[in-house]
């Protein structure tokens, strides 16, 4: 395996929470996964399977209870600007800052001079299709636009890894499809390492290079991985797309049933 294939490496990661009753609850147990440097990995699973826990541990928000997590050869010990997060909720934006000020936040924290960071932020707002909206505040923008500000904000900060936790779940179906297309285009351009969490098979197959299916919780881990062998242009009405869909669906079906028992 070339080094680029385990750019992100979870080695038997377990996360245990103490329930109110005092009993230990393993959200994930012996979770193993390697993700490549230029890979768009979609993590799929039923509700409560610990998808977000995986993301939180990689982001450095929570330490693992056991096991190791290595990024680019370095163990993860906390948050870092190399791992950007796009949150599901738009509460992560700063409503007191305009769109462009939100996008340049990371650069400002790093001490980049104003003229340079302004120019860079404008460039990324353009990339996500928000040229002309620079001076609006988040409250004045739609849900889809806010998520695009989030995307521009992390890309401007030049991360190595993009962590996305169901970023389009709160959007209406049309906007979501549009956002998926746009994200796909950006990824083809930037080729970042992406860990994308979703419960939507369709979304995973539209975006991912590989799709990992998680078992129902507790003590969840990966059940299996499907390589997405679809071209650059993906069409959900094509036969090969449908075949992929069926494979993933068969894999996830019983986990969803178990999660609802």
């Amino acid at each position, binding site marked *: 395996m070339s080094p680029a294939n385990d750019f992100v490496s979870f080695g038997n990661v377990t996360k245990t929470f103490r329930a109110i009753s005092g009993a230990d609850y393993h959200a994930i147990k012996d979770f193993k996964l390697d993700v490549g440097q230029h890979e768009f990995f979609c993590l799929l699973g039923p509700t409560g399977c610990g998808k977000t826990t995986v993301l939180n541990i990689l982001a450095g928000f929570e330490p693992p209870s056991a096991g190791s997590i290595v990024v680019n050869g370095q163990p993860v010990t906390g948050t870092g600007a190399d791992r950007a997060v796009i*949150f599901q909720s738009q509460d992560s934006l700063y*409503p007191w800052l305009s769109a462009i000020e939100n996008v340049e936040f990371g650069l400002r924290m790093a001490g980049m001079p104003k003229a340079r960071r302004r120019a860079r932020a404008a460039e990324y707002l353009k990339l996500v299709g928000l040229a002309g909206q620079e001076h609006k505040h988040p409250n004045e923008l739609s849900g889809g636009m806010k998520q695009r500000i989030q995307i521009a904000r992390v890309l401007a900060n030049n991360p190595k890894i993009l962590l996305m936790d169901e970023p389009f779940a709160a959007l209406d179906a049309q906007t979501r499809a549009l956002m998926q297309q746009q994200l796909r285009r950006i990824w083809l351009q930037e080729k970042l390492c992406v860990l994308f969490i979703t419960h939507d098979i369709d979304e995973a197959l539209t975006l991912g290079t590989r799709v990992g299916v998680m078992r129902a919780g507790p003590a969840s881990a990966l059940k299996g991985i499907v390589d997405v062998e679809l071209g650059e242009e993906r069409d959900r009405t094509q036969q090969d797309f449908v075949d992929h869909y069926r494979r993933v669906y068969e894999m996830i079906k019983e986990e969803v049933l178990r999660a609802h028992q």
Partner: protein
Amino acid sequence: MIMSKKSRNEKIREYATYALGFAAMFATWHLLTKAFPSVLFPTPTAVIAKAIELAQTGALWENLGVSLGRIFSGFLVGVSIGIPVGLIMGNFHFMRRLLEPFTEFLRFIPSVAMITVAVIWFGIGEFSKVFLIAYTTVFIVIISTAAGVMSIHIDKIRAAQTLGASRAQIFLFVSLPAAMPGILTGLRVAMGNSFTTIVAAEMVAADTGLGTMLWHGRLFMLIDQIFVALLILGLVGFLADRVFRVAIRYFGGKYSAVI
């Protein structure tokens, strides 16, 4: 910048409605004095005439100036202690647990009850009044500031962490602006309480001020003068509150989704 930019016409209509409301209030007062004629219930015209007289002799300005000066200094002291303490309590669990006994105990002792102690400790001079206003301000500001900090959505902090902000930067550029609406609301409530406190304190222990004006009015049966003091208190309080409302609306529009 702010979402609801009002047109000129809307603004004029807004002010006109306000003026109408005030006019209705004075009209009601006038009608009540006609319905219940009494020397103990002066008409608005008599009160306004008395107010003009007191303004001309300078007595009104002196008392108003003294009261406002006390409120302003005490408020300033209370706010400059309250905001930093509130920020610290909102940010650090340890400090919150350490300081909560003080704030949770002291805030239930009304400043009006503290007048006795203030007079015994500091006499009837300026210092006791400034102390009381600061006392009534500080706890409200601490609690609303801490609540403002604690209500910040965790994703705002986490986003800043992953964007490379240091702890100090998160405090300065995320926690502080995010707590702004809470802080301003606390200041507004505290300003209202300051008016209550200053009147009570001046009634008990002072030679000048609107409270003293009220008290002397009672002693010498100067009904008109009592009503002038009440009218001025209402008017000045209203104006002070407007200032805060405008500030909250300005910052609120910028700083938060809901005001």
